[in-house]
């Protein structure tokens, strides 16, 4: 039915980012219920599920984006390399340096392409122009955008097409050399060709980064991810290797979703 990438035999990947019994509340609304998930280093973990199931809410908890939402509360712990990012000593600025995010709709700053890419390093203190130029080129190459923009780095980022803007946002995130990249439906606002470019990119990014991707497309999850977690009504119903989830789901709800009975 679907083509799934095979998980390398014998290679588990470290437990890079581990969520343990996480609850997320918006005021009194209990959005995420007792979610636990291990996201493995240098692999892609996909979060799938029907609309409103909480997968984006869970993703945002992973880099403390709920800190911005008044009335939002996160309980439980999320450990990056063993340290709880919600602990008393944890600094959100440092955490967001190590965990980057790409949003559903491309959100480049109304600045030049160059200024967009070096924004991250700049706000964390990098001032050396040569070093910034180097970081910008490396990041744009990693995002497969360098050849298209290298002659117009000083033009506005808003002049790029949607697919290019999204790759720019990915470049912006990788310019900081994070360890984890979170992607919230990164290709849902793009056409099929741009989408496949982004999917190819994800495969390349995995060589260096840990990727967690929310997607409403099961085909996409099957194409790009190594592990998949199925969310429903705020709970994680089932977790497994992508291969297993799509061919031999253990839970009935998972099977119903996969086969299209709802969602």
């Amino acid at each position: 039915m679907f083509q799934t990438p095979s998980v390398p035999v014998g290679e588990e990947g470290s437990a890079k980012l581990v969520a343990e019994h996480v609850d997320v509340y918006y005021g009194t609304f209990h959005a995420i219920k007792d979610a636990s998930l291990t996201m493995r280093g240098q692999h892609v973990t996909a979060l799938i599920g029907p609309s409103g199931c909480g997968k984006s809410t869970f993703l945002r908890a992973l880099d403390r984006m709920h800190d911005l939402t008044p009335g939002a509360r996160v309980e439980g712990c999320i450990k990056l390399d063993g340290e709880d990012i919600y602990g008393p000593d944890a600094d959100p600025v440092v955490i967001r340096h190590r965990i980057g995010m790409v949003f559903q709709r491309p959100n480049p700053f109304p600045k030049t392409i160059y200024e967009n890419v070096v924004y991250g390093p700049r706000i964390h203190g990098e001032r050396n122009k040569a070093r910034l130029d180097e970081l910008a080129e490396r990041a744009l190459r990693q995002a497969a955008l360098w050849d298209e923009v290298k002659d117009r780095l000083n033009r506005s980022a808003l002049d790029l097409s949607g697919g290019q803007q999204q790759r720019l946002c990915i470049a912006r995130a990788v310019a900081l050399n994070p360890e984890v990249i979170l992607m919230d439906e990164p290709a849902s606002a793009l056409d099929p060709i741009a989408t496949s470019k982004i999917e190819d990119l994800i495969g390349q990014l995995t060589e260096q980064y840990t990727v967690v991707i929310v997607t409403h497309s099961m085909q996409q999850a099957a194409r790009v991810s190594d592990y998949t977690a199925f969310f429903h009504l705020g709970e994680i119903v089932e977790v497994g290797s992508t291969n297993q989830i799509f061919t031999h789901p253990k839970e009935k709800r998972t099977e119903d979703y996969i086969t299209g009975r709802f969602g």
Partner: protein
Amino acid sequence: MISAASASGAMPSAIGATRGVRRRRFADALATVVLWTMACSIIVMLAAFVLYMLYLGAGAMTPSFIFGQPKETTAGGGIGPEIYNSFYILVLTLLFTIPIAVSAGIYLQEYARPGLFRTIVQFSAESLATVPSIVMGLFGLLIFVYTFHWGFTALGGALTLTLLNLPALMRVTQEALGSVPDTLREGSVALGGTRWQTITRVVLPSAIGRMTTGVVLIAGRIFGETAALIFTAGLSVSVNAPYDPNPFHTAETLAVHLWYTRSESVVPDVYRIGNGSALVLLIMVLLFNVSARVVGRALTKRFTGRTS
């Protein structure tokens, strides 16, 4: 497809207009014409006004008028020091107004959560904005001229005008910041930016065009202010030197001079001075409005690479 019968006129065409359709199309066209006429009338009114003022005041436009000293009782007075005072008070007022209004605007828009404090600040600002300028002038008279014993001063005038213009500039700041989408703020925070970094590096640069337009429009209003300045900055120019840099000098502005000339003055050439002053004032304010757009666009381009 048009049936063969319609060629002989026996049946209505399938794509031609019926009477009902014609009536609707006419109403549409009529509305378009009426609205267009209303819009044009604005241009016509402005043109008529400007042309008439040009006609009245052009005769007074001589170097001795624009740069000369005013006269108390004889003909031939000029408006040099008054123009200087208008700019002096403008700059001084902006020096006080911009830091306070922009900071308050940033606080209300970016930091304050909806609640009692925010509501009180916004209500206070709105109330301040509705105070008539002449009442504010009286307040300035009582505080700066009498209680502080300053007499009539440029500083007193500037402080009074600050009170008058703070709410407007704060509102402009808030709206300019509010027009920046939250997705940009999210993007900055997701990269590890602090709130202050997000504001100074992403939000303000995106908003600077609108804020500048707001500042220049307020500058136009300050330049033309009369009631508040009559009571605080006075009706005469400095006794020390006509172009006195001391903020405590008596500072009759061009707008106030215009009022004074036509109501109190005893010089024989009131018409010439009045019309000339009015024309200069009008030109200055129009120039402010034009430069508001030019500077606003230039700053937006400089900071964001786009012209809006």
